[in-house]
């Protein structure tokens, strides 16, 4: 007993004194690298080489149970046997069974891959189910087996492992420096500046080139967000039927209809900004005020009187918050709602915001009547429709 636990023996009890190379090799290489620590190692001692994380040699294990005096040192080692050997045997069988079935599942995966075709939708469904199921079972059982193994067979011991110094030894650093300098000289990198400088110059375009790829994120929208296809003289066509509409037809108070600009109903890109809700009000319901610009309030909060026809008002359908179609209209309360974030606009007062995250009224489209009596736009929107954006003035 005394020969395995004599003072100065490189066991784990004083492993904090080990230098980094000794730590890596479990202390067996001691005497070769750091000359200062050489005296502690008795020469010719035939201690078996031990790998970190495995149980200690049988001699040490017997000491654990019998020798009280040495147990303080030896207790730092991991116990070799679980407390209940019978239970351990049972768990061992379960773990092995998990691993075996996991392996069989892996085999089944290969068999399913070969046997189930993918010629039809049904076969693809069956193949997906079989492949996914067998693979999931394989990984699941591997995991379960590993967890059972860890929980029931491996011991629970708290071990403190002191951190080793991060820096390499002075000898190693000196050796590296020497090697590096020799290599640099041998490569002529220092001696021949034209090669060195041209190489450095060649790498600069390589670094800059990816920046040019950012151009593909463009082109910049320019003024396309400021305008829609609406312009003076375009008729308002009922979305779906494409029929123009007269004020006399659209005469029921509380009426609503989705319209788009003549010639653009099938143009989804144009309609994404140009969709308009046409609403008919009872006489006296509308509250009039000036437009936002020029010379008026900075945010329009009333119906512009010149832009209506016989109590018919046209508002942009695109929510000024995030651009959802704000098309829920309550004809009793005159509220226009956006279904996305509950922004609520009051249609009788220029669709100003009365609730929700939107900050601007829905833009009002100037409308009038052409010579045949059909409703037309008398101009474009005088402000950008839809969500606010960076360059929006």
């Amino acid at each position, binding site marked *: 007993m005394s020969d395995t636990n004599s003072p100065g023996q490189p066991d784990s009890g004083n492993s904090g004194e080990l230098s980094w190379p000794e730590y890596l090799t479990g202390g067996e290489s001691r005497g070769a690298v750091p000359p200062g620590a050489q005296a502690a190692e008795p020469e010719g001692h035939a201690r078996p080489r031990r790998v970190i994380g495995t149980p200690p040699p049988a001699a040490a294990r017997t000491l654990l149970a019998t020798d009280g005096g040495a147990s303080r040192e030896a207790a730092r080692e991991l116990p070799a046997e679980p407390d209940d050997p019978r239970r351990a045997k049972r768990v061992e069988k379960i773990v092995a069974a998990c691993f075996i079935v996991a392996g069989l599942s892996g085999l089944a995966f290969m068999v399913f891959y070969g046997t189930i075709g993918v010629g039809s939708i049904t076969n693809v469904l069956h193949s997906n189910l079989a492949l996914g199921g067998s693979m999931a079972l394989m990984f699941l059982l591997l995991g379960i087996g590993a967890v059972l193994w860890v*929980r029931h067979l491996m011991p629970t011991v708290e071990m403190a492992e002191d951190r080793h110094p991060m820096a390499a030894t002075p000898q190693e650093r000196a050796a590296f420096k020497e090697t590096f300098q020799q290599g640099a000289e041998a490569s002529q990198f220092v001696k021949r500046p034209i090669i060195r400088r041209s190489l450095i110059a060649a790498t600069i375009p390589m670094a800059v080139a990816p920046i040019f790829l950012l151009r593909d994120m463009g082109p910049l929208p320019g003024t396309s967000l400021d305008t829609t296809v609406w312009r003076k003289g375009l008729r308002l066509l009922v979305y779906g*039927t494409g029929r123009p509409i007269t004020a006399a037809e659209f005469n029921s108070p509380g009426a609503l209809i989705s319209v788009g600009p003549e010639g653009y109903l099938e143009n989804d890109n144009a309609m994404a900004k140009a969709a308009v809700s046409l609403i008919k009000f009872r006489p006296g319901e509308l509250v009039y005020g000036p437009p936002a610009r020029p010379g008026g309030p900075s945010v329009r909060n009333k119906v512009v009187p010149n832009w209506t026809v016989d109590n018919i008002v046209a508002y942009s359908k695109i929510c000024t918050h995030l651009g959802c179609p704000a098309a829920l209209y309550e004809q009793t309360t005159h509220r226009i709602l956006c279904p996305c974030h509950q922004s609520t606009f009051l249609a009788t007062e220029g669709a100003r915001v009365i609730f929700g995250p939107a900050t601007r009224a829905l833009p009002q489209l100037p409308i009038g009547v052409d010579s045949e009596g059909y409703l037309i736009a008398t101009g474009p929107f005088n402000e950008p429709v839809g969500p606010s954006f960076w360059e929006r003035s």
Partner: protein
Amino acid sequence: MSWITARRRHPAAGYLVVAFVLVLIGTAYAVITGGSASASSPVSANSAQIAQGRNLFLEDCATCHGMFAQGVSGQAPGLIGVGAAAVDFQVSTGRMPAAKLGAENPRKPPRLTPSQTRAVAAYIQSLGGGPPIPSAAQVSTYGANVGLGQQLFVANCAACHNFVGAGGTLTDGKYAPALTQSTPTQIYEAMLTGPEAMPVFNDLTVTPQEKRDIIAYVTQVRALPNPGGFSLGRIGPVTEGLVAFLGLLFFMVLAALWITAKHGKAHE
């Protein structure tokens, strides 16, 4: 008699008596109401029908809408000029007579029979005109253009009623009802009259033929296969997926805790 006397204190006797009386009342009610429901309803309004409608109006509607259907401020709108279509919609869907004043009158089994409904509608129609009840031919979806109906529905109706008519929420407790039980006549009447918060779609803006197209879409979309679950208006079993996801996440957290928990006999 002695058989009853002997068992009248049996524990089940009380329940039996209650059940018997309930069956009796139910049968009598079914006989009475069934008898009046079987009466045929004349399509054209006559003075007798209007008189019957007036009596029914005074019984069931006048409390809120006023003796002369003039409306009561802050309580119920006037009904002069709303037309028979509005009355038929409100009464045949059971929304009127309303059980209580609320944000939205829910659909419920109608209180009046079809013939009584038509009588009240004829009475209101006689007061000030308005859109009449559409005929069966007007709401027929035979030969309708379902594709155009879908376009019109998506552009003008789906914002509130959902793209398959599952309904949706409005402000202050109001909601757009689901259209899953609506009859073609009721859909037509709703578009024509704009009940409650719904906008009006008159026959000049959305023609009768286009209304039939919309009705065809609303009724035929019901037959499309539903992805199942609490489908959120045919989106799919998203709610169940969320619950399953969160439940599984909780289970996995528990499993992780169990795996890393201290176990067995602690070794010194």
